């Protein structure tokens, strides 16, 4: 794949997150597993998305996890859910990528083959001695998605396990063990409108095997996948250098970051699995699709201050808008 093809492919597969000129929080869930068309292409035909960046992003995850093993957390009662998540992800990969992924039962064990990485392995479900790493670590080394597992008990959901290396301005290590409602406590505007309560009720009613999805978004400087709270000292200053730097650089340094989140009820453990897949597209590529450039400008222009503050884009949205005014298809 040439660089031009790769760039065209990234644009064509980008899940552009804005259906209208104004963005507000909503319970924007829809059934998963179908393709959504955009003006530049389409996305979402599979629950797990393997693309041209598979090897690079996998290596990046491995590097982050080696430096900071706390990105993986599994409270003791979540061990069965972690195994359940691993097997469910393998089953999904085998169903969605039959040419390269295989899952089969072999007597008391399971046979797993991933041709993209040359992995062939047999394991016994629940027996850690038969796996080279803990189940979430093992399977997250083979996908580009971050994973969070929610336990359902006492009429609430609890974020009790997961592996998150590509967090956008939050820390899974800090949130682990909190309830869903606590985790979302700081999000502005959503409480008066009952958005989180509704999402919470919806998730608790998910039936085994059901899967839904939603998108979320923010802006990121220099295309960094890991902008978690833990590494703030490394990336926090990027926002300032972007804002203070030449406008010409903004198109290549500032990225629209879309998360496609899949919500899947695991059938054996009953846990709710969140898959968070991060897509990054530089403003220059966003603006290469005229409808997107204008739409992004309108959304940024309209976004209330408290929401911009929470998303961590109060410094970067102005330069982003100025750049789009010059290079995007924006008519004032």
């Amino acid at each position, binding site marked *: 794949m040439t660089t031009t093809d790769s760039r065209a492919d990234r644009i064509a597969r980008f899940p552009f997150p804005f259906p209208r000129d104004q963005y507000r929080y*909503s*319970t*924007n*869930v*829809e*059934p998963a597993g179908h393709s959504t068309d955009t003006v530049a292409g389409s996305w979402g035909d599979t629950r797990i998305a393997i693309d041209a960046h598979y090897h690079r992003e996998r290596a990046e995850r491995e590097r982050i996890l080696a430096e900071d093993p706390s990105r993986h957390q599994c409270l003791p*009662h*979540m*061990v*069965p*859910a972690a195994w*359940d998540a691993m*097997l469910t992800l393998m*089953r999904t990969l085998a169903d969605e990528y039959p040419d390269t992924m295989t899952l089969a*039962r072999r007597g008391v064990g399971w046979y797993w083959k991933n041709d993209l990485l040359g992995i062939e392995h047999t394991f016994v*479900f*629940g027996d850690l001695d038969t796996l080279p790493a803990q189940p979430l670590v093992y399977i997250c080394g083979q996908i580009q998605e971050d994973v969070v597992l929610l*336990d*359902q*008990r*006492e009429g609430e959901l609890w974020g009790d396990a997961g592996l998150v290396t590509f967090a956008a301005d939050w820390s899974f290590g800090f949130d682990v063990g909190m309830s869903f409602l606590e985790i979302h406590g700081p999000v502005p505007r959503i409480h008066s409108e*009952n958005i989180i309560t*509704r*999402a919470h*009720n*919806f998730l608790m*009613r998910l*039936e*085994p*095997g059901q899967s*839904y999805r939603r998108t979320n978004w923010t802006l990121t400087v220099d295309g960094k996948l890991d902008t978690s709270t833990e590494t703030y000292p490394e990336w926090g200053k990027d926002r300032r250098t972007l804002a203070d730097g030449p406008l010409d650089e903004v198109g290549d340094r500032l990225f629209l970051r879309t998360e496609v989140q899949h919500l899947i009820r695991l*059938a*054996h*453990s*009953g846990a709710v699995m969140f898959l968070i897949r991060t897509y990054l597209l530089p403003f220059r590529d966003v603006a290469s699709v005229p409808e997107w450039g204008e739409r992004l400008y309108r959304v940024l222009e309209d976004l209330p201050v408290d929401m911009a503050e929470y998303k961590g884009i109060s410094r970067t949205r102005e330069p982003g808008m100025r750049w789009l005014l010059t290079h995007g298809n924006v008519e004032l």
Partner: protein
Amino acid sequence: MTTALETVAGEITGGLTLTVREARLLCPGIRHIVLADPAGRPLPSFTPGSHITVNWAEGRHNSYSLTGPSIEPDHYAISVRLDENGRGGSRWIHDLQPGQMIRASRPRSAFAPVLTARHHLLIAGGIGVTPILSHVRAALEWGRSFDVIYSFREQCGAHADELAALCGDRMITVSTPGELADRLIPALADQPLGTHVYTCGPAPMIAAVAAWARDCGWPPGRVHSEAFGAGPLADGAPFAAKLGRSGMIVPVPSGTSLLEALLDRGIKVPNLCRQGVCGECRLSVRGGEIEHRDLFLTAEEKAAGESMMPCVSRSAGDRLELDL
């Protein structure tokens, strides 16, 4: 519990077609049925304590707990007590023969173990042993701490031998309510903090266990019993929707949502989740009484009766007038 959920009309959505692989009497009045995918494919995994809903006649369904292995199993197993006073579902099950095909829902969980529990006290009464059996299998698999008390009348101990073999000295059996009280009340008074109790059996037994637990100072959140009925929404009665602007009348049959009926007529209504949570399909209502079944509108909005979510909500009467 064997038969609790029975919906009145309509088909099971997204269900499974299964073939009867095996049928045998476990003990007088209790029949064990083994079901499999006709093509031999693995069946969906399930949570301990799950049930499937079996379609036994046009619009008639009964729910039965799954007793067998739970991870992509090659079969589902249910054990059904013949209820001579029932509507006929258990009789139908008792007449099933190997090779017959049946329609069933995918497994649903209404009685899952609490994973943070320090200890699980499992109480089975009669055929209520079925979900307890799957709890025990999972507890052994994951090394969870548990004890079982199984109450049954002589010669009616379905799965008693199998359960005893799994549990060893972690199970005791009793045969009368008095014996159950003698064994259970002291046990309830002497459990480690963080223990959860699970009861499945006749309603009076569930009530008695709950009362004894309360008397011993147990918080209600630590006492669980099998409660079916968390399944899909009922199909609802048929009604007609009048579109206020065009005067068009759209009939909405039982089992069809108002949203589906409108879309079928080519009327564009934006929609997303179709579960009554996202709010995308909200419609303004000009007249008629609404049966709200969504999680989106607030209590005040529902009381005002001026808008509804047509993906799940229906008319409380035979007609609604919409602002469309």
